[in-house]
């Protein structure tokens, strides 16, 4: 009886919430494109302002680069927290890896994955993609190593210390470019004008490719640390 009461309560709360949301979403006006102003300005003059063909990258790493700094700091904080919480665990994980066929095939495929991630990172201002996506693909390499070759191989190739150093390097690339923006152009994270070139080329959009590179390394190393610390003991306890 009690169980049915609970179930009815849950379902009624669910239905009431759904009705309330539905009623309120009816009030939202029909999609006619966003109000004029910010989006129109960015669409019309984003390319000439930033030199980035991909306007989403222009917004992410130039107009609202500070938000991207905050978002990548969220990943940084999550890495610190997860390593803090999980680093004492010692888990029984097989480090033999999978069979010979899988290992060989991934040995062939892995360089191409790395190449693809570099492509996604460095072409962030020309085609879809950017630092976050490319960084996650970089992290996938570490995950593949852990699964296919066993976590000991991953530890030998890219030890957590190397990953931490890479993460710090990426973070400081981002922050340093911002500070260089203060020193040279007067504003934090301002796009560096002297780096711009003809649009469409690889190094064209001011500091955006470098920021992308920093974010990519940072995100990739951070997510690899997260995955690795979930399957194996990562760091020594520092007492």
């Amino acid at each position, binding site marked *: 009886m009690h169980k049915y009461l609970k179930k009815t309560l849950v379902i009624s709360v669910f239905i009431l919430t759904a009705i309330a949301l539905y009623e*309120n979403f009816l*009030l*939202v*006006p029909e999609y006619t494109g*966003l*109000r*004029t*102003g*910010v*989006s129109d*300005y*960015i669409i019309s003059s984003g390319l000439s302002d930033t030199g980035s063909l991909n306007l989403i990258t222009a917004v992410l790493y*130039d*107009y*609202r*680069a*500070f*938000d991207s*700094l*905050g*978002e990548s*700091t*969220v990943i*940084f*904080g*999550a890495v*610190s*927290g*997860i*390593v*803090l*919480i999980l*680093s*004492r665990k010692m888990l029984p994980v097989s480090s033999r890896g999978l069979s010979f066929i899988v290992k060989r095939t991934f040995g062939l495929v892995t360089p191409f994955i790395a190449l693809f991630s570099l492509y996604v990172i460095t072409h962030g201002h020309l085609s879809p993609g950017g630092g976050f996506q490319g960084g996650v693909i970089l992290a996938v390499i570490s995950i593949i190593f852990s699964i296919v070759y066993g976590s000991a191989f991953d530890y030998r190739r890219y030890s957590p*210390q190397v990953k*931490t*150093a890479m*993460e*710090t390097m990426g*973070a*400081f690339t981002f*922050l340093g470019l*911002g*500070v260089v*923006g*203060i020193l040279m*152009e*007067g*504003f*934090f*994270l*301002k*796009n560096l004008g002297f780096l711009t070139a003809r649009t469409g080329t690889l190094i064209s959009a001011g500091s955006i490719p470098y920021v992308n590179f920093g974010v990519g390394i940072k995100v990739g190393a951070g997510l690899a640390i997260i995955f690795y610390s979930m399957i194996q003991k990562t760091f020594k*306890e*520092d*007492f």
Partner: protein
Amino acid sequence: MMETRIILLIIVPLGTAFIIPFIDLINAKLRRFFVLLGISIQIFNLTSIVVQYFDQIRDGSLFLQYHLGGWQPPFGINLVMDNLSFLFIAIVTLSLLFIIIYSIGYVGHHEGKFYVLYFIIIAASNGAMLTGDLFNMYVFIELLTIASGALIAFQRSHPGSEAAIKYLFYNIIAGSLIFFGVLLTYFNLGTLTMADVANNFAALESGIQLFITAIFLTALLIKMGVFPFLFWLPKSYDSSPAPVTAVLSGVLSKIYLYLFIRLIWTVIGFETIVALNLNILLIDIALFSSFLGHVFALQANNIKRLLGYSSIGHIGMIFAVIMLNTEAGFYGGILHIIAHMFMKAGLFVACGYLLQYTVSNHYRDFKGVGLRDKPVFIAFIILLLSMIGMPPLLGFASKWFILMAFLEAQSYFGAFIVIFGSLTAVIYYLRYIAKGFEEVRLSEDDLKMEVFNQPLLSVLYREKIVTFITYAYTAVIIIFGFGFRFLNIPLRMSIESIMNVERYIELVLGG
């Protein structure tokens, strides 16, 4: 006025947080040097801002801006420091400075990770208070949630992990609600700058206004721990280590109160709230929450959980008195925010010191705590008396102004809640003071069960730091208790910058 130093308030702690893991790889002994370096740069920065703009702070015309990336406000992100955010940044930085000096002596294990998360909290709290952009505010709120959630599980005990999961559950739901509200605002108004949104918000249909306001309010009620969503709060206060609890109670809830003031008065506008008939409802909810907090505190058998419930009571009271929208209400509310910040942080800091040799935080283990270290326990008693509202202390002044504000607005239920809170506080605090002076014979087994193993510093040095910080909090309470008139000018000026929304909008959008 464009000012580079206010961006340094955010990026210096951020840079310190980034560099600490790298320093750990090289030499773990060096990290404390970098921590002190970061903190001192931060303090120097804030002091230089105060010195340069002292006149403007005094006559209430302080208005510093920073356009990130050089983009004008509707297109880019802007940081704004007016009198309100200056006051909050000053007190939050002071409180966080005390707590980090305390934690240098307190944290025993994983010091590097603690400092990383702590500096992220410093950067994110400064960012959340400085920003003039809705989405950027959401980013910093997420940063605060992630960092504090990881810190709650810092002791890695079973209750700690449970509390952290509960905390993250509630707070990530609140964060996604804020994100949803920001999304709807952008969908309807096409802009994210607070001043621009404030300019156009009144023109929306009232249904959408209600929807957006309700979403933001729900999220902030969850974050602050007001009535329907208060159940995550005592548990997470109970099972996290003392400096983290001091941060949670002393700093984070105040930041969410600041964001609440910013969102309701600057962005949404109080006229809209009145037109939607939300203000009476919110006052009643907050007062009921305050009542519930005090009633729960009466039956709590655990000192940290008791302080958590008392926090719910006080935050509900502040919330209600601010929602009165009178000048007296703001005066009492912000004064009590300052008072509560120092009192609660000081209490948790003292608790962490006093409870370090007890088995648990339970009432029966509190026996004889006061005899072990009398000076700290006396400071603890002074802070408790300030919480109750004894006359020469800061708690009395702020509660008096709150009472006056409630009486002036003829909200007698609110006045009743203030007095009820003080009276119940007498009961539940005096219990603990009496228990603390009970004689106890310690056996060898009790002494062995230390809660915190392996302190980094030598015990003497560590105890000196901890005692010093407790005294510092007590000194702040006593000094401002006698001289709460010192706070008169900054309070008046910040109230003026709350009320004068047009000036904010004009200065942000104009240049």
